[in-house]
C-alpha cells in the first residue's frame, strides 16, 4: 500500500493540474513537487512566484526560489521538519525569503531563525532580517583609522586591526585560529562593541564549549553566537554568514561598532560548491562555482567604517591544508581582505603561541590604525624580526659562536623578541602593557 503511494500522488497531481487548467482555476500561487534531489526540489506550478521568494511545503519544509525555469521552479530547502514526497503541495508566500533576529538574543546561541539553540525555543520578539547582503556604496564609507585591540601583542603591535578592517586568520587545523577570534571578542569587554561569532558546521559540543568560554570571561552579554550545524543542511549553512552580516549591518546603521568572526569560510566555499554542483551549475577551478570569489567578496565587503561612526570589523577564518596558503579559495580571500594573520603548524609545535608566521602575515592598513604609542615601535620591531628570521634561515647551520659580533647580537635579540611574542590564551594585554613589554628592545 505504502509502496504505490508516491505514484498515486503523482498521478493525482497530474490529474489535478489538468483539471485546474481545464476549469482555468488559479494554479499560480501553488505547485507540486516534481523532483527531489537532496535539499533541492523542482516544483511544477508556482507560475507567478518571485525570484528568492519564500515558499513552504505545507508545514513540512520551507525554502527559497533559486531559479524560475520556463516549465519548472527550483527551490532550495533551508528547513526540513519532516519527510517530503513528490506530489506534495508547495505554496508561495508573497514574501522574500528572510531570516530572523531578536534584539534580546544577545548573550545566546541562535540560528538564522532566531531559535535559541540551548533553550530550544524561538524568541518571541524576533523580527525579519534579510538573508542577502547588498553592497555598501563607496561614498558611504570613510577611512578605517580607529584601532580594534585584540589584546594580543603580536596582533596589536605588528599586524594591527582597525575598526572596519577585514583581517583574515588562516592556518592548518589545530593552530589556534578560532582562539584568536575568541581572544578578540573577549577583549571587547567595556568597549561598547557588539560581537557576532558565526559558527559554521561546528559540532554542537564545540559551540557549547565556545559559549561556556565566552560566558566565563564575561563576554556573552555583548555577544551573539549565530550557528548553523552540519545537520542543518547546506542551504542554511550557506546563508548564515550573510544573515550574520545583515544583523551586523543593522547595528552599524545605529552607529555601533560590530566585530564579526566567521568560522570558517573554507567550509562555506565547500558547501557552496556542493549546492552549485547539485543545481547543475557550470563548475570552475577545483570544481568551485565561478562566482565563489564574488560570493565571498560580497560578504566581506560588508566590513567598513560607516559615515555615521558605526563600523563592521570582520575576522574571517580560513583553514589551510599542509600549510599551503596558495590554494584557490585561500588566495581569493587573501585578495579580498585587508591583511592576513597566518598561523603555522611548525611554530605551534615549537611552542610559539599565537603561532604566527611573521613573513607571511601582513596588515594592509598597518600604522594607519595604530595609536602613536605603538606605531613606530611596531614598525621597527617588525622589520628587525623579519631581518632576523631571514638571517637565521640563510645561516641555519652556522655556529653562533663563530659569527661576527653584529650577527650574533642580531640572532640573540631576535630570539628574545620571539620569546616576548608568546602569550597564553585569554590573557589580554592593554596597549600600554604591550609597550612596556617591548620597551627595552627598542634601544
Amino acid at each position, binding site marked *: 500500500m505504502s509502496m504505490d503511494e508516491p505514484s498515486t500522488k503523482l498521478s493525482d497531481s497530474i490529474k489535478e493540474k489538468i483539471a485546474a487548467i481545464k476549469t482555468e482555476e488559479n494554479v499560480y500561487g501553488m505547485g507540486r513537487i516534481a523532483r527531489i534531489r537532496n535539499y533541492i526540489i523542482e516544483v511544477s506550478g508556482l507560475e*507567478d512566484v518571485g525570484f528568492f521568494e519564500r515558499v513552504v511545503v505545507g508545514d513540512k519544509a520551507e525554502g527559497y526560489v533559486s531559479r524560475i525555469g520556463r516549465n519548472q521552479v527550483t527551490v532550495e530547502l533551508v528547513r526540513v521538519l519532516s519527510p517530503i514526497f513528490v506530489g506534495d503541495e508547495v505554496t508561495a508566500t508573497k514574501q522574500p525569503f528572510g531570516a530572523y533576529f531578536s534584539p534580546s538574543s544577545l548573550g545566546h546561541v541562535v540560528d538564522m531563525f532566531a531559535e535559541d539553540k540551548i533553550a530550544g525555543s524561538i524568541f518571541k520578539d524576533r523580527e525579519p532580517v534579510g538573508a542577502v547582503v547588498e553592497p555598501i556604496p563607496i561614498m558611504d564609507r570613510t577611512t578605517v583609522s580607529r584601532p580594534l585591540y585584540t589584546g594580543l601583542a603580536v596582533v596589536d603591535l605588528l599586524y594591527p586591526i582597525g575598526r572596519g578592517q577585514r583581517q583574515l586568520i588562516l592556518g592548518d587545523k589545530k593552530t589556534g585560529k578560532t582562539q584568536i577570534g575568541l581572544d578578540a571578542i573577549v577583549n571587547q569587554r567595556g568597549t561598547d562593541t557588539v560581537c557576532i561569532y558565526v559558527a559554521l558546521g561546528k559540532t554542537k559540543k564545540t559551540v557549547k564549549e565556545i559559549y561556556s568560554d565566552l560566558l566565563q570571561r564575561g563576554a556573552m552579554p555583548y555577544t551573539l553566537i549565530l550557528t548553523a550545524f552540519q545537520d542543518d543542511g547546506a542551504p542554511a549553512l550557506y546563508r548564515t554568514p550573510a544573515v550574520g552580516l545583515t544583523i551586523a549591518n543593522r547595528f552599524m546603521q545605529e552607529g555601533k561598532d560590530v566585530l564579526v568572526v566567521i568560522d570558517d569560510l573554507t567550509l562555506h566555499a565547500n558547501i557552496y560548491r556542493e549546492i552549485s554542483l547539485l543545481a547543475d551549475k557550470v563548475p570552475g577551478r577545483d570544481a568551485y562555482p565561478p*562566482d565563489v570569489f564574488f560570493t565571498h567578496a560580497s560578504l566581506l565587503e*560588508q566590513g567598513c567604517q560607516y559615515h555615521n561612526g558605526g563600523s563592521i570589523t570582520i575576522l574571517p577564518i580560513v583553514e589551510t591544508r599542509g600549510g599551503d596558503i596558495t590554494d*584557490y579559495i585561500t588566495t581569493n580571500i587573501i585578495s579580498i581582505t585587508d591583511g592576513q594573520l597566518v598561523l603555522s603548524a611548525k611554530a605551534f609545535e615549537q611552542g610559539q603561541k599565537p603561532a604566527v608566521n611573521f613573513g607571511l602575515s601582513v596588515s594592509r592598513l598597518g600604522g594607519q590604525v595604530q595609536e602613536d604609542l605603538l606605531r613606530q615601535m611596531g*614598525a621597527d620591531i617588525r622589520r628587525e624580526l623579519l631581518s632576523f628570521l631571514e638571517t637565521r634561515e640563510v645561516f641555519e647551520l652556522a655556529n653562533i659562536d663563530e659569527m661576527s659580533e653584529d650577527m650574533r647580537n642580531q640572532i640573540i635579540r631576535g630570539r628574545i623578541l620571539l620569546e616576548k611574542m608568546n602569550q597564553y590564551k585569554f590573557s589580554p594585554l592593554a596597549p600600554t602593557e604591550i609597550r612596556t613589554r617591548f620597551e627595552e628592545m627598542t634601544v
Partner: protein
Amino acid sequence: MSTVTALENTTQAAHAKRPIGKIVAISNMSVSVLLDSYDISVRDIIYVVSNGERSYFEINNVNGNIANAIPLSYVYGLSKGLDVYVREGGLRIEYSDEVLGKVFDALGDTIDGTIIAEPHTKNIYEKNLSMAEINIKGDILWTGIKVVDFFAPLQKGFKMGMFGGAGVGKTVLVKELINNVYTGQGSNSVFVGIGERSREGRELFDEMAASDLLSKMSIVFGQMGENPMIRSRAAYSGLTVGEYLRDEKSQDVLVFIDNIYRFLQANSEISAELGNMPIESGYSTSLLTEISEVMERINSTESGSITSFQAVFIPADDMTDFAVNAIMSHMDGQVALSRKIAEKGIYPAVDVFNTTSKLVSVEGVGERHFSLVERAIAHFARYEDLEEIVAVLGIDELSEEDTNIFYRARKLRNYFTQPMFVSEKYTGIPGEFVDIADVLNDVENILSGEFDTLDEGEFYYIGSVKREL
C-alpha cells in the same frame, strides 16, 4: 542601484513604448525573454518595472524568439510574465569635460553626488582602432621607482602589467605610480577600479581630493561587492573616458586599472551563469576575444597617447594561469611581484627574473643601462645557486669570486627596496623619487665592488646611495 540616470537620459520617450516581450525564466544572473519582435540585438539594453523600480538587463544572446539577458543589478523579487521594454543607445557614459573630477559607476552614473546638467554620452562599446591609427612612438617615462626604471623602463603609450598573487603589493605599487607619474606629468588621468576593495576605492578618492589631484582625474568603479556585469562593464566605461581625453582633448593620458584580471573573472561568472561550456579553470569560453576587445582600445594615436598601468591578480599564485597569460601577451612591459620575496620583508617584492619591458635593449635605453641589467640579473641568478650552497656548507666554502657575488647580490637586492610615498604611514620612512642616473651609478658601484666596505643593511630602504652618504 536605485536609479540609472545615464540610461534614463538617453531615451526620455521610452515610457510611451510598447513592450517587446515578456520574461519567461529567471536565474541568478540571467533572464529569458519571449520576444514579440525580432528587432533586438546583442548588447541592447532592456528593462522591466517591478514594485515601481526599473531593473535593467543587457542582451547576451538571441535564439529565435527567445533572448537571454544579463541583469545589471539583481533579480530578487522578479517574476515570470513581466513586460519587457527596450532602451535605445545601449550602455553609455559621459563624453565631455564633465568627466573630470567625477566618480562614475560602470553604468555611467555619477556616484559622488554630483549631477551632470547636460549630458553628452557615448556608447561604451567603441570599435577598435585600425592599424593605421596606432602610433608606436613615445618618449621614455621615468617612474622614480628604482626597480621599475632599471628592469622594466617604459615609454609613453606602453601597457605595463603589475603581476602578483594575493597580498604581495600590487595595489601599493599602482598607487605609488599614480603618485610619482601622474603628479609629475600634469595631464589628465583615469582610474578604473575593477573588482577590488571598496575601502581602497574610497581611500584613493580621499587621497586624490586631499592632494588637489581630483580635478584632473576621472574615476570609474565596479568594485568586488558588485555583481559581475558591473565589474565587467567598468573596464569599457573607463576606457571610453580615457579615449575622450586622448581623442577629443589630444592629451597624453594615464590610465590606471586595478585590476584587469577581475574583468576576465567577472566575465567567467557571467558565462557560467548562462550555462556556457567553460574552458580550463572555469574561464569564459570567449576569454581571448574579451581581453583583446579591451586591450586593443588602449593605444596611442596621432592625437594623443594612453599609457596604462594595470594590476593583474594571479589566482592561487599560478603564473601559468590561462587568464594571466592571456593578459600578459598584451603587455609591453611587466613587473612581477613574488610571495617568496615579500616574505623576506623586501618591498616592492619584485621578482627580477620576470620583470622586463620591450625597452630593455641597447636601442631602447643605451648600452650602459642595458649591460648593467644583464650583469645584475647574472648576479641574482648566481646568488640563487649560492644561497643553497651557503645554507649547507657555510659561506667560508665559497671561492673569492663567489663570495663577492654573494655579498654584492645581497646588497643589490636590498638596494632595490625603496621607501614609498604611499606607504609612509605604514613604514614611518619618507618616500623617495630616485633619478635613473643615480640608479645606474649605484648599481655600477655595487657590482664593481666600490661599496664592498659598506654593510648590506645600509642599502635597505634607501633612495640613492649618494644621498645616504
